[in-house]
């Protein structure tokens, strides 16, 4: 392993322009909806208008009879035996509708207009059932979504919407609170929100009589899309060659299938290619948004600033079916701190909303919102600097996290120090302004990665990996190879292979892409360099040990053959047929030892006392990257994550009416931040290398969204004296808080 603390790099840490950049600024790059095949049909989905219902019958005869309609499908057309009943029902409902927007039928027609007309001709007879769209109400179980469901599988218990629970326990919580000088307890609410990627889901499927399928799709992981789709259709994954389109954002929401099995089924039924593209409304009501939550948190601390105990209950929406995410929120609640006594209980709650999917550090922002604002209050009560308090309690190497592991070398302390040293932390504030600070944790993951390197005839190098490039990962990956081969990043052609072109690769999720891919590229590059030395030795009729690889060429180090001119990649490619065949190397690995990342944010807000509108006027992100491969892209992740967090803190949220119908399923009413809403977001790239990674990488994509909810909330509290325990902190809520506060203080 390289000593990452002292390693110096020529390419890593610089800011080259991306290889796919020209295609993206000229409109030439092909995203999911940009593919067009001869004879292609257009698929559209009929979606339930009801939040909760049973389908008595579906009559598709009129739709099927319409000129230009080639296929109409319902849940009955799909295999009943699938690996996941949940995925099956999210793809096409099998009788029990659990959310507004759930697919109930689909049509393939010669034009999108005819497909839309056909949808209107489908008659669905629904028995409408009572629904619930509030997580706390759903946890109380007055409306039961699945009568078969028992919490934690306990058959003796009554039906419940809580599918499962989990507990993290340590120490003596009672004794911890007894030792506390200050104890604060609140309940926190966070709305259901959406990842908000600008590109709607889209795919094109082509089926052949030999049973082989071609699938073009915009996703975060085409290998996973292939496998999930195959499972839903009961066909072998190897039959679906899945070709990655450019992806227009994902943030966790494009890690699963919605349209793909439907498109393939209709392509098989018609023998024609089928294209399917969601509208924005469909993206909101029937993709996989991120869970809202209700969290009760009680924390105790001594007056000299030690956290003595934590007691918490976290109710997270899992959406319409039991899901896997709730534990992530529990993990993140106390992860930045060393706490001896805690009791943390999580509840996974069914609700009549879409099936929830990950969104950038899934569930962590909700949890950090509670922890980091309660810490802020404790600091105010004991009169301690907010960063000093966090430093005193910060997790370090050797700290045992509540979710199990003992931390390796981590950078929580360093991000706090960076924040404290930043001029922002001590800058003066204007009238009606306030400052907040908060920290966040994210674990990061690794997973499968395959990298395939070939030296091309002209000496350039092809690099094929297989995780979709969402934010510049191709360029970062090319930098790794350029570093190892000692060539310019421009001499590398990085591409994302389809499922038949390159070996298995995981999903671009969990901040894993740069982390895992760079490990695979490192290993493949080592193999290639060894091979190149061998080939050069053959040319020189020398020993391989006499050959070194440096600055993109083989060098002969003295010996009986003298010191011939260095042999470049082009030279070696030219002679490769005589020295053993084409030059290349591959590595297929499972990237383990992903290391946690921490961040500390500072935010200044200005609050309009008359309208309750909050403007973020200054924002700084200090985050540990381990090692930044491409500095600008790391900074970009920090800025993008912070921007999303600010939107969540102030504006974003699903609004449901009394019928359980989403009222703001469009970009005009679901208000994400625009350039005018945000200040310059300053970044500090802290680098505490991950000792288990060849370059020290930790993963950077997700962490920056964790702290903003609390950071902004703390700033609002500092500006107004009002502690809101709800996000979004929309103007009406802030104004109500200000007015209540003023009334209570007699002003």
């Amino acid at each position: 392993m390289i000593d990452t603390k002292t390693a110096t790099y020529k390419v890593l840490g610089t800011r080259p322009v991306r290889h796919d950049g020209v295609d993206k600024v000229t409109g030439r790059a092909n995203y999911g909806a940009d593919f067009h095949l001869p004879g292609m049909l257009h698929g559209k989905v009929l979606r339930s208008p009801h939040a909760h219902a049973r389908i008595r019958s579906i009559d598709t005869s009129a739709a099927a009879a319409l000129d230009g309609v080639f296929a109409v499908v319902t849940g009955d057309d799909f295999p009943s035996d699938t690996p996941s009943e949940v995925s099956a029902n999210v793809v096409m409902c099998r009788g029990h509708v659990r959310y507004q927007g759930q697919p109930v039928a689909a049509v393939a027609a010669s034009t999108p207009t005819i497909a839309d007309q056909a949808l209107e001709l489908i008659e669905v007879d629904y028995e409408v059932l009572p629904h619930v769209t509030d997580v706390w109400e759903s946890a109380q179980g007055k409306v039961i979504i699945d009568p078969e469901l028992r919490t934690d599988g306990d058959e003796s218990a009554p039906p419940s919407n809580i599918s499962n629970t989990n507990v993290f326990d340590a120490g003596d919580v009672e004794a911890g609170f007894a030792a506390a000088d200050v104890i604060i307890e609140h309940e926190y609410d966070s709305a259901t929100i959406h990842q908000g990627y600008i590109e709607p889901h889209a795919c094109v499927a082509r089926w052949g009589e030999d049973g082989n399928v071609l699938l073009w799709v915009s996703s975060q992981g085409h290998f996973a899309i292939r496998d999930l789709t195959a499972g839903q259709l009961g066909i072998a994954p190897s039959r679906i060659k899945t070709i990655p389109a450019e992806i227009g954002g994902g943030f966790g929401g494009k890690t699963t299938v919605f349209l793909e099995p439907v498109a393939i089924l209709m392509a098989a039924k018609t023998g024609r290619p089928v294209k399917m593209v969601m509208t924005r409304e469909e993206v909101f009501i029937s993709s996989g948004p991120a869970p809202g939550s209700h969290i009760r948190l009680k924390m105790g601390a001594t007056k000299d600033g030690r956290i003595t105990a934590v007691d918490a209950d976290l109710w997270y929406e899992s959406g319409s079916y039991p899901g896997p995410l709730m534990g992530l929120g529990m993990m993140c609640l106390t992860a930045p701190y060393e706490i001896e006594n805690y009791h943390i209980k999580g509840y996974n709650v069914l609700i009549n909303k879409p099936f929830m999917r990950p969104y950038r550090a899934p569930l962590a922002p909700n949890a950090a919102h509670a922890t980091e604002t309660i810490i802020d209050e404790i600091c105010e009560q004991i009169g301690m600097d907010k960063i000093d308090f966090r430093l005193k309690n910060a997790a370090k190497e050797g700290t045992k996290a509540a979710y199990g592991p003992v931390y390796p070398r981590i950078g929580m302390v360093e991000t706090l120090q960076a924040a404290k040293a930043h001029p922002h932390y001590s800058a003066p504030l204007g009238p009606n302004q306030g400052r907040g600070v908060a920290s966040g944790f994210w674990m990061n993951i690794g997973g499968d990665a395959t990298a395939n390197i070939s030296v091309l005839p002209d000496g350039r190098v092809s690099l094929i990996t297989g995780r979709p490039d969402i934010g510049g990962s191709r360029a970062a990956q090319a930098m790794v190879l350029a570093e190892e081969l000692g060539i310019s990043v421009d001499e590398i052609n990085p591409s994302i292979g389809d499922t038949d072109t390159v070996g298995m690769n995981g999903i671009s999720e969990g901040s894993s892409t740069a982390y895992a891919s760079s490990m695979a590229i490192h290993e493949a590059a080592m193999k290639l360099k060894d091979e190149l030395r061998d080939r050069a030795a053959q040319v020189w009729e020398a020993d391989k040990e006499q050959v070194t690889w440096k600055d993109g060429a083989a060098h002969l180090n003295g010996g009986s053959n003298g010191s011939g001119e260095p042999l470049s990649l082009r030279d070696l490619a030219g002679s490769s047929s005589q020295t053993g065949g084409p030059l290349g190397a591959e590595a297929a690995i499972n990237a383990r030892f992903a290391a946690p990342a921490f961040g500390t944010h500072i935010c200044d807000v200005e609050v309009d006392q008359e309208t309750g509108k909050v403007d973020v006027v200054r924002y700084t992100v200090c985050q540990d990257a381990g090692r930044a491969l491409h500095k600008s892209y790391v900074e970009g992740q920090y800025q993008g994550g912070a921007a999303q967090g600010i939107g969540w803190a102030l504006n974003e949220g699903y609004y449901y009416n009394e019928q359980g119908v989403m009222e703001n399923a469009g970009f005009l009413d679901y208000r994400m931040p625009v350039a005018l809403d945000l200040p310059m977001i300053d970044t500090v790239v802290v680098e505490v290398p991950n000792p288990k990674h060849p370059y020290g990488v930790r993963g950077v994509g997700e962490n920056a969204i964790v702290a903003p909810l609390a950071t902004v909330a703390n700033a609002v509290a500092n500006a107004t004296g009002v502690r809101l325990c709800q996000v979004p902190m929309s103007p009406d809520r802030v104004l109500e808080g200000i007015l209540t506060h003023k009334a209570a203080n007699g002003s």
Partner: protein
Amino acid sequence: MSVSINVTVNGRGYQEEVEPRLLLADFLRDVLGLTGTHVGCDTSGCGACTIIVDGKAVKSCTLLAVQADGADLTTIEGLASNGALHPLQEGFHEEHGLQCGFCTPGMIMAAWQLLERNPNPSDAEIRHALEGNFCRCTGYENIVKSVRAAAGSAA
């Protein structure tokens, strides 16, 4: 029923038969094959489909193709000339003004109008001019930088 329209797109004349309710964005993408104009919402919320219509930045999902009859349109595909990128394209490329790139064509076209009207905008003016365009990836900082760089190089 279809209607005949004449449009000039990126300097080339087209006569096409279109359905009266065909959106201009879909006309560009599906009829002319100019898929660089992206559709993120079809309700004028996101700005990804922004193009230039007779010198004005317009969200092409808010216009019907028939409304563009007789108009002179520029899409992202028509911005580079003689094989050289437009300064805005250079700016977004060099200053890392994109992550996923989906909003980029619309951002560039909206910024094009800004620089036509105000060749040397302040950062605040840039942010104001781009308020109709969502980017979910970047936090906008590098987008502002890209436009600033383009303004500097054009000056």
